[in-house]
């Protein structure tokens, strides 16, 4: 019923506006079209300049309201992301200046050169000097932006340092899974055809590859602070995207085509809680590529901590190989049999 009333009210408002508009048309015919046109012209010219002033104030007001909520006041949480922040400020100062100048000219000209009796328009079809000026000046500024932009772009997309911590992250509808290479520093081979939900091999890891035996499979990402991190990015089903807004990093996860990105976390999660003043602060991984109905809920968490805590966490994780094949787990074996420790690698070939 309330729906009915609100529709009725809206329709009423429409009818009233429409009637006023019709009436004003008759009035203008009575007054003389020339006269009413001039009146309209004056009103709209005034509104143009009013719009400019209120608009510029509005932009400033909006900035006061929301700038603190963007990520820029707290700074980039990664070393590489600082370049992006710098790039943002450079671009903002150039475009901001152009924005103010051009909008002021536009609305000010509109107001100043409104039609007046006896005023004649100035016949000014072209001027090569002027046109050359506003071809070259933007070109120079854009060159500066391109040079800075590409310098940072090449830095960020360069190969990761060789001592980087490697973590694999795989997206599927609608969650993230991580894999750590373990002590050997190498991730075991994968083949999507080995995917097996019931057994828990949701990443399709090839456990015949000895390099996979010490790999860790987790749902949370832990990273050490101050060390470069290289993410190897995969997707199981459709395209996802690893979005790390605090680190200013982003890379698509494409099925069949692994991608990588690297960065160096600057602050631990605890430090960020203090920097942002938000006790609930958490580094979030957002999926930034439309991936289906659960896209908005595809949330991952990164814990950045100091190296000691990070190593402790790593040590507490059990290699996936041992969860898949408990009989190979040395702990399991010492518990089950008191005999000498069997090497899990020995009978690998027979495992299927």
């Amino acid at each position, binding site marked *: 019923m309330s*729906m009915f009333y609100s529709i009725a009210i809206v329709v009423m408002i*429409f009818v009233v506006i*429409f009637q006023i*508009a019709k009436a004003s*048309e008759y009035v203008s015919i009575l007054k003389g079209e020339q006269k009413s046109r001039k009146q309209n012209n004056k009103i*709209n*010219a005034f509104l143009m300049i009013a*719009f400019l002033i209120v608009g510029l104030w509005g932009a400033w007001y*909006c900035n006061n309201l929301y700038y603190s*909520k963007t*990520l*820029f006041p707290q700074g980039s949480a990664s070393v590489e*992301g600082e370049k*992006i922040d710098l790039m*943002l400020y450079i*671009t903002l100062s*150039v*475009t901001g200046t152009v924005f103010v100048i*051009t*909008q002021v000219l*536009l*609305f000010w*000209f*509109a107001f100043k*050169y409104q*039609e007046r009796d006896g005023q*004649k*328009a*100035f*016949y*000014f*079809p*072209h001027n090569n000097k002027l046109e050359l000026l506003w*071809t070259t000046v933007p070109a120079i500024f*854009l060159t500066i932006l*391109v040079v800075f*932009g*590409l310098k940072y*772009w090449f830095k960020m997309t360069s190969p990761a340092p060789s001592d980087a911590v490697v973590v694999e992250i795989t997206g599927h509808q609608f969650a993230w899974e991580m894999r750590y290479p373990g002590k050997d520093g190498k991730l075991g081979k994968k083949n*999507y055809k080995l*995917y097996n939900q019931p057994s828990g091999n949701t990443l399709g890891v090839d456990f015949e590859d000895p390099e996979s035996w010490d790999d860790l499979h987790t749902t949370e990402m832990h990273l050490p602070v101050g060390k470069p991190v290289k993410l190897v990015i995969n997707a199981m*089903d*459709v395209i996802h995207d690893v*979005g790390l*807004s605090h680190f200013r990093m982003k*890379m698509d996860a*494409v*099925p*069949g*085509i692994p991608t990588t990105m690297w960065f160096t976390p600057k602050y631990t999660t605890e430090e960020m809680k203090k920097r942002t003043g938000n006790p*609930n*602060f958490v580094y*979030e991984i*957002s999926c*930034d590529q*439309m991936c289906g*109905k*659960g896209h*908005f*809920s595809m949330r991952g968490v990164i814990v950045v901590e100091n190296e000691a805590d990070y190593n402790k966490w790593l040590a507490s994780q059990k290699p996936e190989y041992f969860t898949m094949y408990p009989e190979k787990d040395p702990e399991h074996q010492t518990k089950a049999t008191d005999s000498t420790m069997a090497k899990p690698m020995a009978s690998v070939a027979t495992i299927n």
Partner: protein
Amino acid sequence: MSTATLHETTQHESHGDVHHDHHHQETFITKYVFSQDHKTIAKQFLVTGIIWAIIGGLFSVIFRMQLGNPTATYPWLEDLLGHWAKGGKLQPEFYYALVTMHGTILVFFVLTAGLSGTFANFLIPLQIGARDMASPMLNMLSYWFFFLASVIMMSSLFVQTGPASGGWTIYPPLSALGEASMGSKIGMDLWLVSMAMFIVSSLLGGLNYITTILNMRTKGMSMTRMPLTIWALFFTAVLGVLSFPVLLSGAILLLFDRNLGTSFYLSDIVVAGKILPNEGGSAILFQHLFWFLGHPEVYIILLPAMGMSSEILSVNSRKPIFGYMAMVGSLFAITILAFLVWAHHMFVTGLNPFLGSVFVLLTLLIAVPSAIKVFNWLTTLWKGNIRFTPAMMFAIGFVSLFISGGLTGIFLGNSALDIHLHDTYFVIAHFHIVMGVASFFGMFAGVYHWYPKMFGRYLNNTLAYIHFWVTIIGAYLIFWPMHYEGLAGMPRRYYDFSNWESFKMFGGLNEFISLIAIIVFAVQILFVVNFFYSIWKGRKVTTQNPWEANTLEWTTPVRPGHGNWPGDIPEVHRWPYDYGKDGKDFIPQDVPVGADESKH
């Protein structure tokens, strides 16, 4: 009948002075339905575009209601949408379907077909001095293919599994696999077939526009005497003809992947627990094919708005457009560059960084011709004698929005910054302002300016001014704050942000934006009412040239018949921008050059 018209038209072209009249009997069907008169076809495109715009706009209102207040339930929504809004709450799957259809409808059906279809058809013959298009038959088919595409797209809204819901960019594998999403079942096939029909329509139209502009200009109408609207529509048609076929090929390969078991875009996929046999395809290939159209597409949308705004700014400033050749040159530069920048949509796909750097350079180059256009528009206003007709208001609004949205393109085109801003609300703000709202402003400007020529009546001025002010203020209120959400990394296409520590602080802002969106939508309905009401009840046009403009369409009768000029087609003696020259307010193009006239 079609051949008769064709023959007639060409004959008049070649002889020029044969009296033209309606020899053939026109029935209701040939006059209003299967019409071959370019003016009627233009109106058919416009009315179909308006209907689509209402639908597409309504979709955005519904999903904005969800975004504005994610916890609210609306029982009437369940009455309207059934199981898609169970318990009065929009389901995520249908939310994504609405987002997808909003994009598809607005980009293709409204701002491509509705904008170019309307004004290319209406203005090209009238402004170059032709009796009709080169092929009125193809022109008619162009509309009816568009109509067919519309019917198919509309029908996809009513299938059991819902319309396509993978975003208007329909990236596979999401769009290729029915298991991945409800919208990727039959709805996606209908989407692809509809787009194929749409592309046929667009090609038939585009070839016709190009042919007409190149071959059918009246005597004296050299290329450099064409109004900028015609130049813009010409480049628009060239862009469409060269890029739409690529999307068609991409769509056909996707249909193969979906239905015939090919692997163009599929490789190494496990979906819904099922291991797919497809190997060796590339999901990224589709993005290249898509954006090879997708980027020119934004200029297909924008160029007509630029052309019409140039014309309207000049007429109502009572001044020539400043730097005509530079305006044509910059349109040309934008057209060329439009083909060379598509991968700037793909900076974070794992693209080769060197290739990315080339696309950065080419992308930012577009800012140069864009800057030329902006400064030339400003100089056109400078020392003018400005008449604020509703069309002029929208043309000025167009320039303002083009500046605002264009400048944020400099952020996104720079790949380093794009890493942070890609697929956030910053992108939404950018393209809605520069290609959505700005193009709509160009379209509104065109409608207000040429409405008297289309229907022989005026739109109501008061409603027009209300329409303008609410729309421009509303557009800025909606999209300006979105830049801040984007800078905070808030991702696009999220159904609900309340579980995200990083984004939930924008809840209040989202509610505000949704409220403004509803108001702005309501005012568009006011425009639509004004539009249809005025066709029959508007103030009648009594003078042939109500805006005191120079171009040829104002030399036709107030209500031109099929063939446009009852007598000879006028001969052109000058460029279309002699405003304020030699103390004369305006000198139409068909006025011969006087002996003592100064040269420009």
